[in-house]
């Protein structure tokens, strides 16, 4: 099919419009964070960095960032261990119920967040004595497992078993084989999966709302609580803008990983 010149121009214009649709709202958030005025109103009243300074000094924001980072790191660690174990089991064994197990791992992100949220909330509050930081970690761990699992599984399938077999033939036990052969080959996939898991956890609002103990404020919870408070609008703008800027980071890491390793990082 030869795409005619006219079609090409029309498609290019369409693409420019579509990318504008994607990027204008994000640009508005960035511009608003430098707005000198105190309200979320367009057009901005003037340029000022005072709200950035105030956001950095804001104790609520700082505590929320720390909580989110700690939570994200623990949830990622849980997901890395459980996701790697599950991916090894599903890629290196054939067993009864294999499809059911893989479906079960995917289920936490396939179901709406609110279903996972109230299901866990119900069990924690009705039977296990209430919500704490631990219940929040359990909630986040549950939906983070799948992303590590997906990345690790894809890598293990591509890797094949020849190198592991060679290692066993040369007398290495399973742990030695994992440490010296399997793990090094999986490493970049696990980093990608870990980055993705951390990103998911850092961003999660719905499951967090239903599983966080009283008084625990992650960054999304902080934004949500302050979204409708007019006097907090400038600080919320800055936090939002900072998150937009940070979102470039994982893409950068993914590019790095895929240039180090042409099999691709699989960060999505």
């Amino acid at each position, binding site marked *: 099919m030869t795409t005619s010149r006219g079609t090409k121009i029309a498609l290019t214009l369409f*693409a420019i419009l579509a990318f504008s649709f994607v990027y204008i709202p994000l640009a508005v958030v960035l511009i608003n964070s430098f707005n000198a005025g105190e309200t979320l109103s367009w057009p901005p009243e003037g340029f000022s960095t005072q709200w950035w300074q105030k956001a950095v000094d804001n104790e609520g924001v700082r505590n929320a960032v720390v909580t989110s980072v700690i939570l994200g790191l623990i949830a990622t660690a849980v997901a890395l261990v459980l996701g790697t174990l599950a991916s090894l089991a599903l890629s*290196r064994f054939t067993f009864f119920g294999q499809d059911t197990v893989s479906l079960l791992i995917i289920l936490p992100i396939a*179901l*709406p967040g609110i*279903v996972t949220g109230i299901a866990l909330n*119900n069990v924690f509050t009705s039977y296990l004595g209430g919500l704490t930081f631990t219940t929040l970690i359990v909630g986040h761990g549950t939906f983070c497992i799948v992303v590590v699992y997906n990345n690790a599984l894809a890598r293990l399938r591509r890797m094949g078993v020849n190198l592991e077999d060679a290692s066993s033939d040369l007398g290495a036990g399973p742990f030695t084989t994992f440490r010296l052969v399997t793990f090094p080959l999986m490493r970049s996939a696990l980093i990608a999966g870990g980055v993705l898991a951390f990103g998911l956890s850092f961003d999660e609002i*719905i499951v967090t709302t239903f599983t966080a103990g009283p008084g625990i404020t992650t960054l999304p919870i902080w934004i949500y609580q302050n*979204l409708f408070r007019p006097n907090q609008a400038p600080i919320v703008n800055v936090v939002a803008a900072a998150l937009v800027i940070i979102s470039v980071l994982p893409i950068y890491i993914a590019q790095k990983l895929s240039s180090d390793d042409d099999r691709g990082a699989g960060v999505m």
Partner: protein
Amino acid sequence: MATAAVAPPKGGFGYRHPRARLAALLGGPMIWLVVVYLGSLAALLLTAFWTVDGFTGAVVRTFTLENFVDAFTTPAYLQVMARTIGIAVCVTILCLILAVPLGFFMSRVASKRMQPILVAMILTPLWASYLVKVYAWRAMLSPESGVIAWFLSPLGIGGPGFGILGIVITLTYLWLPYMILPVYAGFSRLPNSMLDASADLGAKNWRTFRSVIIPMIFPAIVAGSIFTFSLSLGDYITAQIVGGTTTMLGNIVQQNYVTNLPFAAAFATIPVIIVLIYLAAVRRSGALENL
């Protein structure tokens, strides 16, 4: 070390004592997912068949279908269901309208050098916080001080404001990358020879598009629609932030779970059932292998 006399079914890590190793690998993940997660879902489903004491507000553990009857016979709830499904369908169609030309542009018109950059440009907003993107649309849609209202004011028309249209726009924005990525991948996999063959047989561009391209990327479209449809169905935060007074399924669940958990649980099964029906319907298209 003895060499293996019989080759194991799959090599590598499962070389010897496969059962013990499998149990060791799968034990941890399964305890977490079966006991914690599946257990919670089962408990929630069970709760959906219980009821709440009208006076004390305590959960009464006797089996009843009351919650489901209530959900499916109250006109207000039926309206919310219809509205939510309508929103999810609109969002899916809008994503499709945007994603198909864009996916075609990215894979077939843009230069090879531009392609990874365009893909990165689609991926980047996916990493921007969900809440920030909804918040961004609050700034865009706000009737008094929003960007759209400001842009349209010289023309004497108001923006869409907060409401059902605002929800549709915002959800389309949120889930668009989930449609673009599979559609782009679908276009990239399309062999040129097929398009040439179609042209050689005398088909004009539009005919080739309709009879060759669309059938070939259909599984990719369905794969994308699973995301846009089911993510829209379960969302309630967007409705809270840009929906004005509009409620969706998730809002009903969220409003009831403190005072009437059994009803909230019953209501929460509705989006799950709809998604499962949708998945069963599209299973035959081969889209599930495209996820």
